[in-house]
């Protein structure tokens, strides 16, 4: 009974510390300098995109909704800017939720403005279709059958960006950025039917789930959370929001480690006292 109010206070102290660990690095962001890091799994995605010749068609499946926007938007932006610079043709789609379409439109428009790209000519955004795996299976049969019109209600058959493309097999690369199980669906159905190289992006907590697919070669690379997005920004030489967000993240990770250490000291001290 007596420990309950004490724990309540400790919990609020922890919450306050986490809040400070986020706010302070944001305020003094310019004074914090972190070194660039690079991991093989992120670099593999960069190398794959670099290896594609200009005009190659690729799919970017945006399978997250507003709850994961803050974590996954930076990596989506970095990848989009990279593929636009490489002059690749991008098909944006989602199998996740109707809300993903709204985010996708916003992200594509912003990246296209930055890299001076045109809707319909350099990229196309497809509307949300329910069905998940069925949508991917239909793409493996006929893209125009699956998406007769783009999100602006234009006939997809008339779009220059889709010239010479008919099925998933015509894709040179596909990338799924997901906050759920969409990567699994793309591996099982998209990769199996389309045979194209597949990359994945996900929230940091989900990244561990996809390591078996890296080892089996079903994924060429993997990006997990803000850390991977910051690495990608560094690779394309365009440090942005992810690099900035790594600062509070680093401080919060350090705080959690300190809390674990303190928690264990308290635990062992109490155990020794019996």
């Amino acid at each position, binding site marked *: 009974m007596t420990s309950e109010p004490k724990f309540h206070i*400790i*919990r609020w102290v*922890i*919450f306050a*510390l*986490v809040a400070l660990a986020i706010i302070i690095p944001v305020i003094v962001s310019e004074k914090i300098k*972190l*070194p*660039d*890091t690079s*991991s*093989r799994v992120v670099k593999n995605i960069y190398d794959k995109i670099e290896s594609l010749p200009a005009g190659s068609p690729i799919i970017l499946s945006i399978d997250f*909704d*507003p*709850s*994961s*926007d*803050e*974590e996954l938007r930076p990596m989506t932006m970095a990848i989009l800017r990279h593929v636009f610079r490489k002059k690749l043709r991008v098909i944006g789609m989602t199998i996740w939720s109707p*809300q993903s379409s*709204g*985010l996708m439109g*916003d992200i594509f428009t912003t990246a296209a403005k930055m890299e001076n790209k045109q809707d319909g000519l350099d990229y196309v955004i497809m509307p949300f*279709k*329910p*069905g*998940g795996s*069925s*949508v991917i*299976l*239909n793409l493996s*049969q*006929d893209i125009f*059958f699956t998406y007769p019109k783009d999100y602006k209600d234009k006939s997809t058959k008339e779009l220059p960006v889709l010239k010479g493309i008919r099925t998933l097999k015509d894709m040179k690369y596909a990338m799924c950025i997901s906050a759920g199980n969409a990567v699994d669906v793309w591996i099982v159905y998209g990769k199996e039917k389309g045979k194209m190289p597949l990359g994945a992006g996900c929230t*940091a907590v989900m*990244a*561990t*789930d996809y*390591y*078996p697919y*890296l*080892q089996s070669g079903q994924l060429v690379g993997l990006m997990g*959370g803000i*850390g991977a997005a910051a690495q990608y920004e560094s690779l394309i030489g365009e440090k942005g929001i992810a690099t900035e967000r*790594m600062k509070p*993240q*680093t401080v*919060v*990770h*350090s*705080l*959690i*480690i300190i*809390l*674990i250490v*303190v*928690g*264990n000291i308290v*635990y*062992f001290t109490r155990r020794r006292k019996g």
Partner: protein
Amino acid sequence: MIKRQLPLLIAFAMGVIFIIQFFIPHQISQDLLTWVNKWLMIIGGISLLLGIYSLLNFHYLQIFRNKPGWGFSLIMFFSFLISVVVGFTPSLINVILPLPESSVQSAEQVKEWYRITGLKDGSSLDWIFRHGITPLSATMFSIIGFFIASAAFRAFRARSLEATLLLLAAVFIMLGQTPLGGMLWSGIPDIMTWILSTPNTAAKRAILFGIAMGSISFSLKIIFGIERAYLGGKN
């Protein structure tokens, strides 16, 4: 009788046909898959309507039965109504505050209209999405960070060998995920990579195989009519 036998027969026929279809690359077989997938997408659309019905029914009962937290259900109805009205009438705000034609009105007046309505581009629904759904969803997701910190303090205790190994793995992963790990010791990112690509992959692969075998056996039980829970009812 037919109410139970017919779904079982359809499940059996479709299951067997599409197991065989997977191994036949002929165009007729591929067209059949496309046709059925089109139906699946239509059924997926209908399931969205069922989801809406289920949501509204649940919250209606919460209010009707005066259950604790019924006020939140009322907010849900209110938000739902606004989204539907705005969604079906994208130019609703234009009706209330008519958008001046840029060809006949000055640029300042157009700018003023945007300032009053809060709209920059896109529809009124777009405005709700950007300024309502997005920040609210992000807030809900962000709260997890606070609970993780609190849980780490209470739960990560070196009580046993297994718990100590888990604790050490967590510390190395957290340090390795940030540039701080490499700054402290250059070996930390390598240890993190090893943990993720060796013990983690081995465990995940075993779980994946288990899930796959379970899915296959469950699918076979549905195809052969042994598993009938999807039919509903008591039997």
